[in-house]
């Protein structure tokens, strides 16, 4: 069995003259939680829709668990999807709708799977409510319930917490953490803090192109940079003189230290810097490793 869950090779998708996704190549390893990041119009949802087989690539290939998602039945029961902006169909209660979908996915007994999924998202009260009459937040949670139903090997979530109140969003994040223990998860989101919290790796898309992809540590330069929030000025020259430091500067109240992790391990580098600052009587408010993902995204897009 291959170590790769998703393999995308030179994929492009155009809508008329507009190129929404342009020559993107990336891989997602099995068991990984992978983030899709980018500003509005970056092509995230188009890319996501090609992974699900909803859209056909103009060129290039997409393989999910080794199969082309456009091939009929190739990923049946292996893929859980929360599509963005897909309305729940009306005419059926939440319970009947999820039982219908569970049955269609080949889950038996369908009713039990549907109940477990609805219980998981805490919406048993809505079991007999018509799916069309749910509020946006409740519909989103039912959308998540159907994506998680049956324990698919790959779960694709497009904006899973958009429009949710903070408590519901936190609940959804904890559900994603549970799911990622036994599945490959791809999350597309604008909420970078959320992705930083959940994901092992990510790809940053900008105007349809892949700006950068890698582990979160690579993207945020966690092994080559740290920041110390200070009260007052920092002794920059002395910090720069420390072994392994390749650069030091002030950004507002933050001391930004760049270092070569091959010469000195990050924990040693941080400890040495803090010891120096304490010796110099500098007041320290906090330490963060790497850049904020948000800063990295802003740099790249």
């Amino acid at each position: 069995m291959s170590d790769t869950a998703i393999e995308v090779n030179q994929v492009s998708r155009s809508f008329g003259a507009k190129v929404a996704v342009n020559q993107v190549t990336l891989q997602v390893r099995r068991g990984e939680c992978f983030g899709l990041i980018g500003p509005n119009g970056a092509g995230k949802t188009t890319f996501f829709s090609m992974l699900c087989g909803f859209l056909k690539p103009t060129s290039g290939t997409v393989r999910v668990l080794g199969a082309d998602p456009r091939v009929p039945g190739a990923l049946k029961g292996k893929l859980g999807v929360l599509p963005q902006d897909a309305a729940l169909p009306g005419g059926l209660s939440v319970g009947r709708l999820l039982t219908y979908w569970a049955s269609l996915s080949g889950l038996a007994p369908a009713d039990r799977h549907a109940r477990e999924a609805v219980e998981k998202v805490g919406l048993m009260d809505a079991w007999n409510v018509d799916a069309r009459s749910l509020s946006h937040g409740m519909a989103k949670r039912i959308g998540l319930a159907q994506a998680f139903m049956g324990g698919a090997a790959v779960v694709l979530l497009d904006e899973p917490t958009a429009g949710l109140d903070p408590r519901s969003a936190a609940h959804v994040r904890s559900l994603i953490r549970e799911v990622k223990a036994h599945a490959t998860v791809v999350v597309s989101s604008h909420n970078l803090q959320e992705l930083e919290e959940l994901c092992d790796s990510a790809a940053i898309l900008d105007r349809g192109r892949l700006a950068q992809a890698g582990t979160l540590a690579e993207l945020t330069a966690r092994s080559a940079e740290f920041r110390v929030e200070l009260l007052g000025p920092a002794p920059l020259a002395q910090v720069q003189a420390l072994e392994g430091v390749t650069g030091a500067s002030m950004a507002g109240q933050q001391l930004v230290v760049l270092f070569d992790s091959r010469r000195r391990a990050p924990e040693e580098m941080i400890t040495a810097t803090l010891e120096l600052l304490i010796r110099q009587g500098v007041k320290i408010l906090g330490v963060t490793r790497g850049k904020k993902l948000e800063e990295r995204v802003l740099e790249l897009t």
Partner: protein
Amino acid sequence: MEGIREIGVIWQGELRRALRSPRTLVLVLLYCFFAALVLIAVSFMVSSATSTLNTNLGGQGVPEEGQAQVALEAKAALLKWLFGDDVNLVEALSRIPVVIPLVFKITLFFLPAYAALMGFDQISGEIEPRSIRYLAVRARRSSILFGKFAAQATVLVSLILLVDTLIFATARVLNPEFEFSLLLPTLLRFWVAAFVFSTAYVALTSLCSALFSLPAVSLIFNLIALFGLWMLDAVGGWIASWARLQGQEEPFLANLRWLSPTAYSNALLHPEFGVFGRGLVAYVLFSAVFLAAGYLVLRRRDV
């Protein structure tokens, strides 16, 4: 096998949705009212025309046997006007109360438009709000199309069978001489004809619904397609009749009518098995072509 199971699950789910849909209920009621109205009006007209004819003929001193003969000839002329020149068909239909073929023909004429109104958004209505994505990730697109088609066809065919039964029951009440030995096989034949006829038009509706992502556009296109098919039959039929009247051979353009399912509807009521079989095959082929085209469109399209 998995594909067939999927079709079954989608058929069940969509049938449940259709039966809970206010639109379906309203349309079913409307069709029942329409059929009942046509039935009452036609029964009244037939009864008053027969009575007026008998009174006039009686006044002219025509004996009862003569009156019955004239009534039979009038009935045959009416059936010939409605169902064409086929002597065997007209003769077979003459044996049953005239209200049956009359009401059947009128209700069947409006059936394609009714099928369009009921099912125009079966696919497009799910593409526009993207709810089809929840199905597309679980089932083959062929299963989605055939499952939804089967659900629509079930609702429509059940309704038609019910209406046909109502027509036959009324005819039996109005004509006690219409014996069960003739009624039952005729009802079965009309059921088969209605089933085959309506299935082809539900398939056309499925194709139109798969073609567009906006339900309103699907409906408009469906109605245009129905009008186009009706025109093909009408124009082709008119050219053929005109050529016959002139004693000429049918020109090639007269064959246009065979591109429309409507052209085969009379064959479905024909007493000869060969003619009926040709009609049946034609409708099955139309259904297959419409569904295959719908599948190709849905298979290739983005959802």
